[in-house]
């Protein structure tokens, strides 16, 4: 492994192509942490956006007119405004309204850190898309299939759990995956409030090493591979979940 790292140090000396995130252990650590944080932020947002999507879809079926209107308002608001401004609004505007908490060192710290705000903001953003995805999935299950289960004596909960959800899930999977891919790309916005994710760490490295070109190309490649792997995994998952005999 060391010789591998050394090779890149030599590469730098010989050609000027500077890739410190490979040969320098400190930069390597930063880059790796950034990568992990991008993954972590994606997973946290994925989890909460799905929760938001499910609750929202459920609320949209509410008989109360105002409940439906509020959910619709939420969806339209978050879909038709820039996610970056949403992030600023959460982080600066709402963040400044929250009380501060005392730290162990006697100082004061905001109640929620920048990672938390990025997670909240992006979850609401992606959640707005998930609400409609989930609702369309549940609605896509034919009434007649539900009726057949009713005729067999299934209870409402059993029908939802055994019939509606598994079918709806397969229907929404492509849209959900599409949303997930977008979510991973959108985590780069957290850069704007200094969450040390991959792009932020890359920025740190190019500031220290003055190797913007190399870092920029690496970033393009890194996201290309990250998203590519994700898309590939999702597609295989979709294929595995496909019901035999349906679809092309």
């Amino acid at each position, binding site marked *: 492994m060391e010789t591998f790292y050394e090779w890149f140090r030599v590469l730098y000396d010989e050609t000027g192509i500077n890739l410190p995130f490979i040969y320098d252990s400190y930069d390597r650590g930063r880059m790796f942490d950034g990568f992990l944080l991008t993954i972590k932020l994606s997973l946290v947002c994925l989890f909460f956006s799905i929760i938001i999507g499910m609750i929202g879809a459920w609320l949209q079926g509410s008989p109360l007119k105002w409940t439906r209107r509020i959910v619709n308002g939420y969806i339209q608001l978050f879909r038709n405004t820039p996610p970056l*401004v949403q992030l600023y609004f959460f982080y600066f505007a709402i963040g400044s309204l929250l009380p501060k908490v005392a730290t162990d060192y006697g100082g004061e710290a905001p109640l929620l850190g920048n990672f938390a705000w990025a997670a909240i903001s992006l979850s609401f953003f992606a959640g707005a898309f998930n609400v409609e995805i989930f609702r369309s999935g549940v609605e896509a299950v034919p009434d007649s299939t539900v009726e057949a289960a009713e005729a067999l004596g299934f209870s409402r909960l059993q029908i939802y759990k055994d019939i509606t959800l598994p079918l709806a899930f397969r229907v929404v999977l492509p849209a959900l995956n599409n949303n997930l891919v977008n979510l991973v790309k959108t985590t780069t916005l957290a850069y704007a409030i200094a969450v040390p994710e991959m792009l932020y760490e890359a920025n740190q490295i190019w500031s220290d090493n003055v190797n913007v070109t190399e870092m920029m190309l690496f970033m*393009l490649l890194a996201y290309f591979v990250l998203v590519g792997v994700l898309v590939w995994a999702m597609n295989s998952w979709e294929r595995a979940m496909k019901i035999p005999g*349906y*679809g092309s």
Partner: protein
Amino acid sequence: MSARTFKTDLPVLLPAQAKSVERFSIRLEPWHGLVLLLICVFSASVGFAQSTPVKAPIFEVLIRWMPLLLTGFVFNLVISFLAMGIGTAVGAALGLGQISPNPLLRKFCWFVTQFFRNSPWLVLLFFAMFLLPFQFDIGIAKIPLPDWLKATIGLSLPVMANVSEIVRGAVNSLPSGQWEAAESLAYTRRQTLWLIILPQCVKRMLPPWMNLYSILTMATVLASIVGVSEVMTLTGQALAAEGGRSDLLAPFYSFVLLIFFIYCYPIARWTVYLEKKFAVKG
């Protein structure tokens, strides 16, 4: 972010879905904008209640800065028009390349499309900002390349990739019978494409293209991160000029959200309308 229209390939689930189009299309109504306005007013009044009497009232401050912020927003729109124009032109060519009979060209265009589609917009923006020269030397003259133009080019890259996919998707969604019918009438491939296929595709491409434009418009604020003086940058400067009053944060950011909403919401509504209209006609 792209919101691909939701599709399923389970035929058993299709009828219910077709039926659901009418019932579940989002009802976009003007009061959605009102909600935003309310948040804006509400946060302003909350801030007002918190502020000490010495400071200027929040509405006054907001109104004082409004012309500047709106000018900034117009700049966002200019960037969005330019980026959409460049992205559409290059993207359309790339998309046609993706359906070219030449396998090498097809592979190449596919790869370029995927590469720029998978990259986050912000990364592509950085890419353009840092790697494009500040001026082009074309021998006789030097053409300067200001930051905002670089940002425009940076934003047009993902637009290009998405347009390419829209074109490819639309052409592929046409039944193959159209190609065969044209072929049997002795049209050349080029004639078939330009006279038969593409005219039919325009209808299918319009809604996703408008959706893309809306996403692009919202992405123009990313240019603030690289220092272009668009609405978000100006908002930050206005807030700084007011001495960093925290009670101004919510009203100012709400105001920015509001302008974008007022602009993007009708586009979204129109997109949904067109989608429905074209879906009915088939």
